[in-house]
Structure formats: C-alpha cells, structure tokens
C-alpha cells in the first residue's frame, strides 16, 4: 500500500514510463506497413498509439496535481528493448518489430484485461532465474535492482520493492487509485489535501487536439481517479466491456479485430465481432530487423547516421514534451510538428534495406542513452 506522497509520485513516474514504453513498439509496427496498403491495420494501430499519448498526458496531469515533477528525460525513461510487461502469473517480452501475427499477439497481451482473482494474486514475486538475471533465482544485488528498476527492462515492478511486480498494468493503476484515496483521506483528517500542485502545470484540452479523447484537468480526487480510470478503460476495457461510455472500443478489442478479420459493432459479445470484414495483408510490411540496435548498422554508414540523428531528435522531442508537462503546455502544439518529423524519419529508416543482411530492413533503435560499448 502506498503510504507517502513520495511513493505515490514514484508510482506515477513509473506510470509515465509504462505508458510511453508502448509507443516505440506500436510506432515501429505502424510505420512498417507499406504505404498505401493495410489501411485497416494502419487505422487501428494509429488510434491506439494516439490514445497512449493521451494516457501519458493524463498521468502527467495526475503527477503534477499531487505536486510531483514529470521527468521524461531521466536516464532509463525509454527502455532498451525488448522490455518486459506483466501478464498475470507470467510476464512477456515486448519487442520493436514489424507488424506481424507475433507483434499483434504481443499487442493483445499488452492491452489484455487482467483483474487479479484475489488480493494476494495482485502481486507476483519476480522469477529472476527465468529472466536469466541470476542463476539461482535469488534477487539481484541492491545496486543491480536499482539499475533494473530505473532502466525499464522490466515494467510493472512494485516501486520501492522491485523483488515483486504487479500481476497486470490494471492492478498497477488500481494500486495508485487506492494510494490516492488513502493519502487524501489522511490529509483531509487534518484539513489538508494532497492536491497541492500548480494548476498552471495542467495540460488542458486546448493544448491537446485530436488526441484520442479529452484530456482531463486534474484538480482533486475525483478528476485524478477519472483520469486514471480513463487510462485503464481505454486499454483493457471497463470490466472487460468492448465499448466504454463514450462508445470508444478498448484497445484490446481494437487489436482483436485485426486478429479475427472483423470489426466489432455495438451489441457484440467479446470474442465474437459481427461488423464489417476487415483485411490484413501480412506481406505488405517492411521486414524491420527486430530490436535493432546502432551496433547492427556498422555496415551502413548512411543508415547509422540517420539512426543516431533519429535518437537525438527523439530525445529532443521528449525534452520538449517534458517542458510542456512542466508549466509550458503550449509547447505541446509545437511538439506535434516534431511528431510529424519523427514519423517521416522513422519511415525513411524502416524503408532502408540493410546491406549484408538480406531480407532485413533498418528501423529506429530508440537507444537514447547507449552505453559506450554499444556505440559503434
């Protein structure tokens, strides 16, 4: 249970990291689609990616509201892919890879509704041996744990106790909502509130257009819970429902449509969409090398230069978003221009075949803080 405001802020920072971490895999798959093809898949992935950007902003609003300071520029904020996400008793790897049945299966797991059966099931001890992180299954050293927690190698760890993780992302947000309620109850008993943040740091709807739903200005308990509930609902669905109260389809069911080749319509039961047919052409995809790193590009100096430039511009983009989340929300409008440039840069990388590795294409590496030995 979250006991202090500092813990709550740490949870919310991890929430920012988590929401952002879905973007590189979604965008890599999105831009791997051949231009002019796969319009159904393009639309579905794009909508989900845009809503993840809304979620990032909503979590930033909650963090600002409780007097925290969003930091998207901290080392390790962007994971070194693959990263791991929780799925009940198991966890699974999330790769940067082209659109494919495997990628879609991963997306479904990312968004899968997963409410724990009981209170005890909400937390799962980490299995270090299976992860290959320690040979005998014991926890890594405290230093290694700290590094692991910061790096985003494993997402969904319990902040402050990384020997355990949440059984699902939904449970992670459930814990935050409980923490907010608990801390706010405590504060109110002595005539105070935890919502002491500067209201000018809230990102409000006029700064967030066409962004997959309305951004919520967080000023107190109700709006905080509403913002976090929206994050959970858009992903997994509200109590497993396909449509939310605004007739938006939850991400899980959006992706399921691609798997089943049919759209959902109102009145459908989960797993049984009855809307129009939908077509996926698995072959109209650039074969992006999975989890590509700068070190794979040594034989292609032009691609390497562009990949490095992409990483720099992505870092600069996160810096701008971060300023927007820290009192200059109007910068979000300019960040949209950067997003378009990022899209174009990703497209160029993904359309370039690698030499000497027949059948594989380049892609963005998202190595924002490469260690020395990884830099060619």
């Amino acid at each position: 249970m979250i006991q202090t405001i500092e813990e709550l802020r740490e949870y919310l920072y991890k929430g920012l990291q988590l929401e952002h971490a879905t973007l590189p895999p979604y965008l890599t798959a999105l831009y791997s689609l051949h231009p002019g093809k796969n319009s159904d898949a393009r639309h579905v992935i794009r909508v989900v990616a845009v809503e993840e950007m809304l979620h990032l902003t909503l979590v930033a609003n909650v963090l600002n509201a409780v007097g925290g300071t969003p930091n998207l520029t901290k080392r390790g904020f962007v994971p070194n892919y693959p990263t791991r996400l929780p799925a009940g008793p198991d966890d699974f790897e999330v790769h940067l890879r082209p659109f494919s049945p495997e990628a879609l299966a991963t997306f479904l797991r990312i968004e899968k509704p997963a409410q724990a059966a009981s209170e005890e099931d909400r937390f799962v001890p980490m299995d270090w041996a299976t992860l290959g992180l320690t040979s005998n299954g014991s926890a890594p050293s405290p230093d290694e744990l700290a590094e692991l927690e910061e790096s985003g190698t494993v997402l969904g760890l319990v902040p402050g106790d990384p020997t355990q993780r949440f059984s699902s992302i939904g449970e992670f947000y459930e814990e935050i909502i409980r923490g907010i309620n608990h801390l706010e109850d405590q504060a109110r008993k002595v005539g105070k509130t935890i919502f002491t943040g500067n209201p000018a740091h809230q990102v409000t709807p006029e700064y967030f257009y066409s962004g997959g739903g309305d951004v919520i200005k967080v000023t107190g308990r109700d709006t905080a819970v509403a913002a976090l509930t929206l994050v959970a609902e858009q992903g997994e669905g509200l109590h497993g429902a396909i449509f939310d109260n605004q007739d938006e389809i939850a991400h899980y069911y959006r992706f399921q449509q691609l798997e089943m080749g049919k759209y959902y319509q109102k009145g459908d039961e989960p797993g049984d969409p009855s809307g129009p047919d939908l077509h996926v052409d698995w072959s109209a995809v650039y074969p992006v090398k999975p989890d590509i790193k700068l070190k794979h590009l040594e034989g292609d100096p032009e691609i390497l230069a562009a990949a490095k430039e992409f990483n720099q511009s992505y870092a600069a983009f996160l810096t701008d978003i971060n300023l927007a989340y820290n009192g200059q929300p109007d910068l979000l409008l300019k960040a949209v221009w950067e997003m378009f440039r990022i899209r174009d840069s990703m497209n160029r990388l993904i359309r370039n075949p690698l030499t000497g590795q027949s059948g594989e294409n380049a892609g963005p590496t998202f190595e924002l803080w490469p260690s020395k030995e990884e830099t060619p």
Partner: protein
Amino acid sequence: MTQGPTADEKLREFVKFSAAVTGFSEFDLWGTGQAEAYYETVVNQVGPDAIQNAISSDPSVVPADPVVQSIIKLWYVGVWYGPELAGRVDVAAWTAPGRSGAKPAVSDDSQPEESWNRQAVPGQHQAGESGAYAEDGRKALFVVSSEAYTEGLLWRAIGAHPSGAKAPGYGSWVNPPAFENYQKEQV
C-alpha cells in the same frame, strides 16, 4: 556458368546510380519507399538494356542520356517522363513554376496531342491514365502512384511538403522552410 546479378543487386545498383544523378543519398532514395516501383517503371518503359546503358554512361556529360533525365525526373516528381519527351517545349511549360500537372500551359503544335498517349503505355492501372496505349505497351507520361507524388525529392529539396499530403502540423507554417543537412557533404 557465371550468374548474373540478382534482382536485389540490380535494384541496389539502380538506387546507387540514382543517388549519383539526383544528388540525394542512397538512404534518402530508399527512404521514399519508391525504389522498387521506380525501378520497375524504368524497366517496363525502356527495358533493362537501356537502364544498363544509362547507368554506364558518364553522369557528368551534358546533356545527359535522355533515359538518365527521365530517371532524375522520376525521383524528383514521381512522374515518368519518357525519354521521347526530352526537349519537348510543351512538357517544359507544363512543369514550369505555377503549373502542377493539369494541362500543358502552352499548346504544342508540332505534334497532335493524342500522340502522347499513342506512344504510351502499359501496364498497370496508373492513376489518371487515359487515352490509347501504344501497341508495345509503353506510355510516355504518367504519375507512378499516389505515394510517388508525396515522396518526390523536390519537396525535400525545397524544404516544403506536398500540398494535401504529409502535412507538417497545424500552424507549422510560421517556421521558415527547414533544410536538412546531414547529407550535405555528399555530392
């Protein structure tokens, strides 16, 4: 028995040559996503031998081989101008500033208009094509695909974007055109 270059090698050779004559890097050319479509277009229109001749010609010679001119235009505007159109006054006028492809700005009395389409053709359902095709299936003038237009090098060359596509974001017009510079040392 010696093996000739594979299809992949031929495509790479085409892109390498195209980089030399367009002034853009191979990375940028692949980045358009049009390399395969353009190579196929040139092969279909002038045949593999003509490409080979063009590639082995000296790129510094002026005027260049008409096929080379066609290849350069293809990358810049996404439109195939057959080498038979080289030097045509009406085509030059059509592509002059202020004209973007509707109709020739000045009529060309030297040839009847339908002769364009008569030389033309083939193939694949090109957007907006009309008129008769030549018996050999060639076509003198067509937009390769809807993506070819938006991927034309000319937009990057002038630091702009194709009208109606690849929008750079609401309000971004407040910025001056952005010229990219990481390939400036090349050619």
